[in-house]
């Protein structure tokens, strides 16, 4: 606490501007993507079907931040999922949360994950996490 008014740091990087936005479809998933990374946006546009029409029911909202401050290294993949929400970790610094109920994909991409690697490695995992979860086994 400080009596001098100061700009509070955005430690979680919640408020990074995402000026690049477009709609796309891949398989049966349609989404609106917002990102701060023009190169990543171009790569995703190149690998998916562009859709300019208005939002349809069932569309998901994606926000992907190219996170220059994230740690690099490793390609270990971990998926943690419970109820309507799941998270995907790739390497040391890529973190993506998927809210199936709200149809939201919220993630940070480490600097060492190229656009191509995102398409080949990360995107299929996000699509899988977005699918409705099977009922848990009876306890």
């Amino acid at each position, binding site marked *: *606490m*400080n*009596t*001098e*008014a*100061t700009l*509070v740091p*955005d*430690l*979680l*990087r*919640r*408020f990074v501007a995402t000026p690049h936005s477009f709609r796309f479809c891949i398989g049966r998933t349609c989404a609106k993507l917002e990102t701060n990374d023009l190169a990543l946006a171009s790569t995703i546009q190149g690998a998916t079907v562009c859709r300019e029409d208005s939002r349809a029911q069932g569309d998901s909202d994606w*926000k992907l*931040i190219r*996170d220059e401050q*994230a*740690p690099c290294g490793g390609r*270990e*993949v*971990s*998926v*943690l*999922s*419970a*109820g*309507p*929400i*799941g*998270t995907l*970790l790739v390497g*040391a*610094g890529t*973190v993506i*949360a998927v*809210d199936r109920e709200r149809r*939201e994909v*919220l*993630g*940070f991409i480490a600097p060492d994950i190229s656009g191509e690697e995102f398409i080949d490695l990360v995107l299929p995992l996000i699509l899988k996490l977005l699918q409705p*979860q099977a009922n*848990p*086994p009876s*306890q």
Partner: protein
Amino acid sequence: MLMIDVFAHGYRFNLHLAGTVCEVETNHCRLGFTLRYWTVAAPEGDATGNFAMQIFVSAGSAPPSERPHFRGLNHVVVASFGHANVFLFDLLRRRIIAQVSERVAGDPLFWNERLLPIAVGVFGPTVGVVPVHCACLCLEGEGVLVAGISGAGKSTLSAALVQSGFDYVSDDWTYIGRGDGGLLAHGMSAHIKLLPDAIAHFPMLAEHSLITSLNGELAYEVAADAFGGDIFRSCEPRRCIFLERSSQLTSSFAPLGAEQMRLGLQSSVERLPSQLPEAARTRSEIIEELACLPCWTFRYGGTPQFAAQEILAFVCSQKQELTT
């Protein structure tokens, strides 16, 4: 690829954390023992909010990484302490899902000093608690919040105040919520973090080792009761003191207005995403109440022990004024 579906588990218990109740569900029989300091039989009446934590413990001895990786967007925050120890905070549903290694599940220091304070800080106003960057000490049941910019000496002064007869609630982050009789200040850590140069004022630190703290700094982390006072989990905040260092070996107190106090509090809290309007409202209300506390700027030079004596004398005189 490690893929874990965290379903319901066999073990359930409640934790009482900074006035909130956390309902824990886990597959690990010993996690309840690790968290026993916080366990309550049933939710207490003064709880301001609830959240749930589902923890899947997997076999393995992976320690938590020293520097966690935190990121958040909208209503979701992820804290990763390496791939084996991951926490996902869902602020809308007030729920944590986590997987941890068996080693972390049995490590009370990790939970008490790192994860649980982080959890309360992350959920914050969504469960009716505002994390404020200040220390809290308690004299005869009355809390004194001690604030100041980084480097103003909050922690060293906290240790000196405990030596002077205050009881300890917190030295760095204090969690303000509402109780039956008004505001309550809660502490989440029983340890005071002191930088290496504090040894000049506290020779007893020579008996302790420097460790790497959560923000990467080398520091002593010493149980507050080692300085002589008791550790309280919470107290009613009655006063607030803002520290300002001076090169002069003198001290002075000057009243601080509610508006300045409000601005100081608002400028130190994290921005909230638009998905959490109720939390923003709760936080504003608590800050408004906090700003009404009597508040002073304390300008001082010299040792923390000197400053502590000055504060002790000031607080005693304030209490006496109120009783006469």
